[in-house]
């Protein structure tokens, strides 16, 4: 994410340095959105408890999507929730990042074949970091947050972010409506 929202890395020395500085600040001050979905939400809360304490790295929850930087998708996303999740993502102010926490958010997890489950949140929003586990331990979430920090701060990595935002809303359609097959 460039300084002024451009996707290209600035070549100017001054602008490039400023860009590095702003991105350093962004990486050191990632505020996640308070949005717990399922089991992983409890482990997400446990990441901010005194044992793990992600606040040491300058992260604390903001309730409104306007002021949040990171969305942690902490649980199974079903077709009813998918529209709301997408809307929350759209409401977040740029720059914004998404962490997919747990097997359900990665690909549907144990509920993968079910009729109501979206098989992976990356069908709805672009994901930066995936965490395996069901549920992942708080330490795993903290590591993912630190990986994201390094991704934002690293000048090579941050322009490699896939920017195409999924627009294929078929995953949210209910099955059997017009004989359409699920999008896999």
């Amino acid at each position, binding site marked *: 994410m460039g300084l002024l929202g451009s996707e290209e890395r600035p070549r100017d020395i001054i602008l490039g340095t400023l860009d590095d500085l*702003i991105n350093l600040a962004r990486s050191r001050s990632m505020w996640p959105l308070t949005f717990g979905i399922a089991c992983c939400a409890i482990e997400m809360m446990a990441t901010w408890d005194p044992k793990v304490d992600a*606040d040491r790295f*300058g992260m604390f929850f903001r309730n409104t999507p306007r002021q949040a*930087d990171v969305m942690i998708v902490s649980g199974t996303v079903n077709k009813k929730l998918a529209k709301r999740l997408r809307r929350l993502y759209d409401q977040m*102010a740029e*720059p914004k990042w998404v962490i997919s926490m747990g097997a359900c958010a990665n690909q549907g997890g144990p509920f993968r074949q079910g009729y109501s489950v979206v098989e992976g949140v990356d069908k709805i929003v672009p994901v930066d970091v995936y965490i395996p586990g069901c549920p992942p331990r708080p330490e795993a979430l903290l590591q993912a947050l*630190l990986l994201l920090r390094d991704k934002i701060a690293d000048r090579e990595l941050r322009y490699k972010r896939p920017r195409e935002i999924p627009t294929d809303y078929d995953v949210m359609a209910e099955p059997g409506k017009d004989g359409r097959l699920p999008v896999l």
Partner: protein
Amino acid sequence: MSYIPIPEDKHFRIKRIGYDPGRSRPWLERLVYSLYVFAFWGFVVATYAGVPALFDWLGWDSGWGYVAMRATQVVMLFLLSAVIALMLILALRKYLGKVQERYGPMHYGPAGGIQTVFDALKLLGKEDFVPAAADWLTFRLAPAVTFVSSFAIFAVVPFASGWTLAETNVGLIYLIAVSTLSAYGVLLGGVSSGNKWALIGALRAGAQMVSYEIPLALVFLAVAVWSGSLSLGEIVDSQMGVWNVVPLFIPFVLYVIASLAELKHIPFDFPEAESELIAGYNVEYSGMSFAFFFLAEFVELFLLPALIVVFFFGGWHGPLFGLEPGTLAAGALQSLYFTIKTAVWVWVFLWIRATLPRYRDDQLMEFAWKAMIPLALFGLVLAAYMRLIWR
């Protein structure tokens, strides 16, 4: 500061991951945060003594030179307010960490010391937009109104004897007028956002203002009656022997409660009640507009304790060790006393924030109208009576 020690559980072998004992250095934390307080003090000295001395040395001490000197002081105070906000946010987070058996920010900068600088820089680079449902002009104006009304309180705060930006004889009336304005910023921001949560927050802010402003004004009146002046400098002067907190104990308690309400601080933080209204009046703000609300909140978190010190705890008074009042050294010492007293009161406010749950909004109104106003009237009458007897 005592706090519950962090249980390093030996039985259960709970280890903090990413925790390097070398990174948590209590002596470093103490050093860094005391340095912050001294840096603040230095800033104050530079603003109130350094800038006039500089202009004096340049010979620009009359006419437009005087205006330029005052303008420079205002700019310095603006920078100072930013520094205050950065420091207080950090102090809040570190103190919450202490209370909550954890560390708080500790990895960026010495003992987490530049964490909030990163936060501010990030907010600077964050997208700041006006929602489609919002009223553009009012939406943009609201953070400025909120910040300016908080910032304007600086004008009458005496940091030391004679160290006031505008030494006026209607300081108390100015304070009432200006501090009421900050509720307008919240109201404008909430109503113009086009968001129902923000609207509820704004309405709560309005309802809250009408309940705490009256006892606040009555407390000001009691202070004015007892001290015999509306000027903040003279109020502090009159506390030479005994601090106002002794004779004016009832107004003092009411003033602390009303300050909590004016600050929108934890037992009375209804306008932005995080768990009820998501973020209340600033729910639609992002980027720098949100940062200005944040800035205003934390500048007030400095200024209202400062006013408590001015009204009830003798302002800058303290032992001068034979220094001649009015000199630079005496002023510096006095502003140091003022800073330390204010820091203690800020700590009390942070302590309240870390400890208490939230009242319901109608309970504050009921309390304000049924208990605080009669008590404040009683305090006013008592102050007048005592003044007749003893002064």
